[in-house]
């Protein structure tokens, strides 16, 4: 394990400055619209000091948290996904001349080096999944461009929400890899380790102290505690076979009757990648833009084919989402598409709990038997 150092809270601004001087536009969580959102941030003072979050099915509230800390909360509705996979973007433009000839111009993705401070382990796991999706096979140029210049400062979870279950999916509460730096926040500062050569170089520019044995032990204890307090869990293992053996289970109808098919779950899910392509012709007829934007398998248009909708009812759409997320995802990307962040539970307006649904479908929560 790389050597642990210590960054007192009083010196946190130096991390922002060092990253800025290295050419990164620094992003960090801040309080926006009653939630925590990752946005450009220059001052450590703008972090959510003393803020906590209380999450439960269908409910998200910010409240007073640990006053000495900036990361004493679980997560907000979004993290890395919108930074790399834009909610809406132009793919190409086309101009038509008087003769009807078409000239296609691809939209060049903007290159900006970004550093994100405060990435959660579940979000790193989701990023790894999106890397497999967007960079595998024919790589997506837009995602690839943004992904290349990304510096990640993970902060291990110390205050998981009631909705969190990353310990059961193996994606948290501590980050194992995929970061440049990883922090464990204590009352007076951070235990810091590097996870990449770029991170190592950057660490050398910071006036870090030796991390004492007590500090390192406190960080370890905190990680264990963050795992132990989680009450929800996802059954372990590959659930593809048991889920697809239950396509006629009455639970699909039952959950489909509660589900509003609003798509909140797919919007906040850090691994959902579906997007639709659309055409935006200019009003004066001079050109047209071809765009893509986040789509959801809960919309009727998602399964449109030849004038019909394959998934005309909500139970069929919920079944598609869950059997893909927890089931066929394994076949596609070698693991489940769920990283245990709990966002789909929190942001569902009717509080549908993915862990409860999976346990109900599998009966007793055993994944191995059909």
């Amino acid at each position, binding site marked *: 394990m790389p050597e642990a150092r210590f960054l007192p809270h009083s010196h946190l601004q130096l991390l922002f400055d060092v990253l800025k001087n290295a050419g990164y536009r620094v992003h960090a969580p801040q309080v926006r619209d009653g939630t925590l959102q990752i946005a450009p941030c220059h001052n450590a003072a703008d972090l959510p000091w003393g803020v906590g979050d209380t999450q439960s099915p269908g409910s998200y509230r910010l409240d007073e948290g640990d006053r000495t800390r900036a990361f004493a909360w679980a997560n907000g509705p979004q993290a890395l996904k919108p930074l790399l996979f834009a909610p809406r973007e132009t793919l190409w433009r086309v101009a038509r001349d008087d003769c009807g000839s078409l000239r296609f111009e691809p939209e060049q993705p903007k290159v900006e080096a970004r550093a994100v401070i405060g990435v959660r382990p579940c979000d790193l796991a989701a990023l790894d999944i999106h890397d497999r999706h967007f960079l595998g096979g024919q790589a997506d140029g837009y995602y690839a461009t943004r992904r290349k210049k990304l510096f990640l400062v993970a902060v291990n979870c110390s205050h998981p929400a009631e909705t969190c279950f990353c310990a059961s999916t193996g994606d948290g509460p501590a980050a194992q890899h995929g970061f440049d730096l990883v922090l464990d926040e204590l009352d007076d500062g951070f235990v810091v380790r590097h996870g990449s050569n770029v991170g190592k170089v950057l660490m050398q520019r910071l006036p870090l102290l030796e991390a004492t044995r007590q500090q390192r032990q406190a960080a370890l204890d905190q990680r264990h505690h963050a795992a132990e307090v989680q009450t929800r869990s996802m059954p372990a293992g590959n659930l593809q076979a048991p889920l697809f053996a239950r396509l006629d289970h009455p639970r699909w109808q039952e959950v489909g009757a509660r589900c509003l098919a609003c798509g909140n779950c797919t919007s906040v899910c850090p691994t959902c990648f579906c997007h639709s*392509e659309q055409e935006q012709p200019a009003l004066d007829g001079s050109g047209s833009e071809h765009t893509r934007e986040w789509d959801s398998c809960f919309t009727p248009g998602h399964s*449109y084919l030849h004038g019909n909708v394959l*998934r005309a009812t909500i139970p069929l759409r919920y079944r598609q989402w869950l059997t893909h997320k927890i089931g066929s995802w394994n076949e596609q990307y070698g693991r489940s598409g769920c990283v245990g962040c709990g966002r789909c539970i929190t942001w569902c307006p009717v509080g549908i709990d993915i862990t409860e649904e999976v346990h109900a479908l599998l009966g007793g929560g055993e994944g191995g038997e059909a």
Partner: protein
Amino acid sequence: MITLRQPCEAEIIERIEETPSIFTLRLRFTDPEVHAAYRFTPGQFNMLYLYGVGEVPISIVSDPEDEHMLDHTIRAVGRVTNALAKLQVGDKVGVRGPYGRGWPMIEAEGKDVLIATGGLGCAPVVSVINYIMRRRQRFGRLTIMQGVKHADDLIWREQYDAWSKQPNTQVLLAASEGGSMWPWKVGHLPVLFEEAVLDPRNTTAMMCGPEGMMIAVVKVLQKRNFAEERIWLSMERNMQCGDGKCGHCQHGGHFVCKDGPVFAYPEVKSLLGTKGF
């Protein structure tokens, strides 16, 4: 090196009205270099783009070695295809592709081939028939089965006549509703097997059409001792990107646009015909 993808401009060289709602666009890329470099295999598809309207996936029906033309047979059924139907010779469209995995033409060489199609979805296999006709000596016996709902739905009637006159070729047609001018069988596609001469150990079966029809044909083939691995079918789903990225075409673990649209039956049988997938 990053890849961005946008269509290339192509011109409509010829427009063929197949039926009141089905038409074929014969295209050529306006950039001769693009046209010369373009390669595809039967069963693959292109995303056709209509200015200001959008894109739609359409299978390529012309021969891969036809240097002059890229043919797409389209049924006017939705927003984009209804607008494409109004285009005329000389109009420009965008073409992005080819995408997907085509038919197993190399594996099928030297063997008999059975083509079974139902409904109006025969375009993906017409490329195969044309491919075999042009290389007739490289394939064994060719059996073409086509089932339609109504006699009026049959397109390429002259072509079926012409194919039936080729050596070592059998054409079998059925309509659920025949009518007085229908000289072939009346009934669903499986009735055609009564007249088919098939060697299950030496035949590659290729199918497209409604999933219910394909399931019915598979049942008949299995009764006739066809191995599942010798049965291939072309799937249709909502496809928007062509790269397996946009997520719409998923069928269980498969992305139909890149893993298919042509699949060996064992790859898709568990969910074939399952409502909602």
